[in-house]
């Protein structure tokens, strides 16, 4: 590669180039103006349709009552902390378990054949079972067996149910990522005499993981919301707290408050993933012509 740094910035953009830059700026300004206009029109349109609808005052009183929001807030914050805890515990376990299942399904070792069948069955069966049923099964079923030394904690078993359910989905996401890595990559790793395990670890999985970040995020977000499923087994999470409040006061505002909490958790995570993906892309394609 010939590198040639311009001595002391001797080049000055020509008149034509300056005109072009002005034209590009004008184009950009126009795009920004159109984007702003389109956004304003869209948002205003929705707002008007909402506010002008005949039933809006009643809906507002039922769903968007600031007083009820304030009253229910402390309890919901407490409950939401339980959702966050559950999510933070479950997510790493899901990633590890999901990747392990995906790797087992990809393995070619004869020793792992029985496990491979198990992993295939696991993903097939677990994905077919509604997550809510899994939560019931784990929370009521397992303690119901009366096994010695097994905890009866609802929180523990509810989290376990989520881990089982989501690891099956995540395993399939990982597997899709692994299979999308071009065979030539595997060939060149094998040509370097790497074992299959090493090929996976150093070449295939890193590329696969990068590719599946967006769908993984999808599952993360879904998991965050599904932590609310534990409301159905009477665990005082954000949703159960909100339902409790709503039933006492005949007002649905707490549900909206809960939704806001979940959104507040999801959006930063989405932005973080975007930022990570951009950073990886920048680093790997830097200087590529």
């Amino acid at each position, binding site marked *: 590669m*010939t590198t040639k*740094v311009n001595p002391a910035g001797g080049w000055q953009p*020509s008149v034509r180039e300056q005109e*072009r830059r002005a*034209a590009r700026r004008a184009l950009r300004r126009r795009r920004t103006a159109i984007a702003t206009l389109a956004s304003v029109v869209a948002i205003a349109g929705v707002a008007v349709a909402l506010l002008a609808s005949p039933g809006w005052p009643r809906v507002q009183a039922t769903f968007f009552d600031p007083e009820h929001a304030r009253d229910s807030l402390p309890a919901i914050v407490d409950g939401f902390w339980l959702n966050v805890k559950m999510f933070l515990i479950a997510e790493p376990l899901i990633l590890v378990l999901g990747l392990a299942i995906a790797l087992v399904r990809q393995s070619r070792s004869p020793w792992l054949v029985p496990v491979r069948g198990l992993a295939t069955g696991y993903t097939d069966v677990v994905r077919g079972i509604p997550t809510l049923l899994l939560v019931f099964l784990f929370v009521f079923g397992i303690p119901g067996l009366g096994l010695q030394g097994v905890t009866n904690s609802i929180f523990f078993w509810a989290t376990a149910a989520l881990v089982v359910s989501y690891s099956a989905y995540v395993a399939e996401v990982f597997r899709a990522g692994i299979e999308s890595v071009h065979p030539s990559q595997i060939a060149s790793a094998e040509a370097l005499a790497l074992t299959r395990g090493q090929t996976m670890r150093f070449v295939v999985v890193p590329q696969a993981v990068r590719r599946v970040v967006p769908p993984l995020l999808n599952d993360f977000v879904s998991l965050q919301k599904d932590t609310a499923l534990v409301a159905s087994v009477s665990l005082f999470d954000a949703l159960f707290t909100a339902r409790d409040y709503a039933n006492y006061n005949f007002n649905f505002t707490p549900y909206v408050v809960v939704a806001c909490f979940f959104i507040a958790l999801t959006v930063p995570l989405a932005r973080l993933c975007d930022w990570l993906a951009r950073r990886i892309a920048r680093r790997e394609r830097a200087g590529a012509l």
Partner: protein
Amino acid sequence: MTRRSNVVLEARNLRKSYGDRVVLDDVSLRVEAGDVVCLIGSSGSGKSTLLRCLDLLEEIDDGVIEFGGREVSDPLVDPREVRRDIGMVFQAYNLFPHRTVLANCTLAPRAVHGLSKADAERRARDLLMRFGLGEYADQHPDRLSGGQQQRVALVRALCTEPRLLLLDEITAALDPELVGEVLGIVRGLAEAGTTMVIATHEMSFARDVATRVCFLDGGRLLEEGPPEQVFAAPREQRTRDFLRRVLPA
């Protein structure tokens, strides 16, 4: 015909940099109808970047590109309108692996040029047949050899009947045995009067087909002239050094 209407493409004082690395520095190039311009020079001299700039795949930092008498480096010009009339072939073929050979070749004629399925397929099959690829029309590109894939890529570019063909080191990824079959086609195109700009490492090929040879070095167009002159009596020392390295003694 006036001289003006004969000029297919004219680039003046092109400049392109990535960060503080200047890859094209004050490059001017004029291509007339029927010209076969060969760009030579070592890797990183700016040949590929020049072609990419001409096809408006890269935004230039300065200079002017005119195609068919119209300035196309103007930000107000829709680059797709320009690329309709320019064909480009890449070093790594860049065929679409999920489409058959025929579907690769009929995509642009149908989606961009509005040909009917039957017309597009007739044209594609004709060209594939002419280039000895008739039997592969319904296969997927990855089943073909490198030389065959590159010939398909050429056919794909030709199917839109471009006024100008840009070839970016199209034989660099091929083994010597397969280079011939691809260059043979390009030679045929040159004889048929196709206007082309070719970045190439194949010196003997450049000497044979070029109407003009341009030597690029460090982003500058150092020397330009008919092949007999550039190869036999280069004016610049850098050209002489380069040719000594790449030409068999």
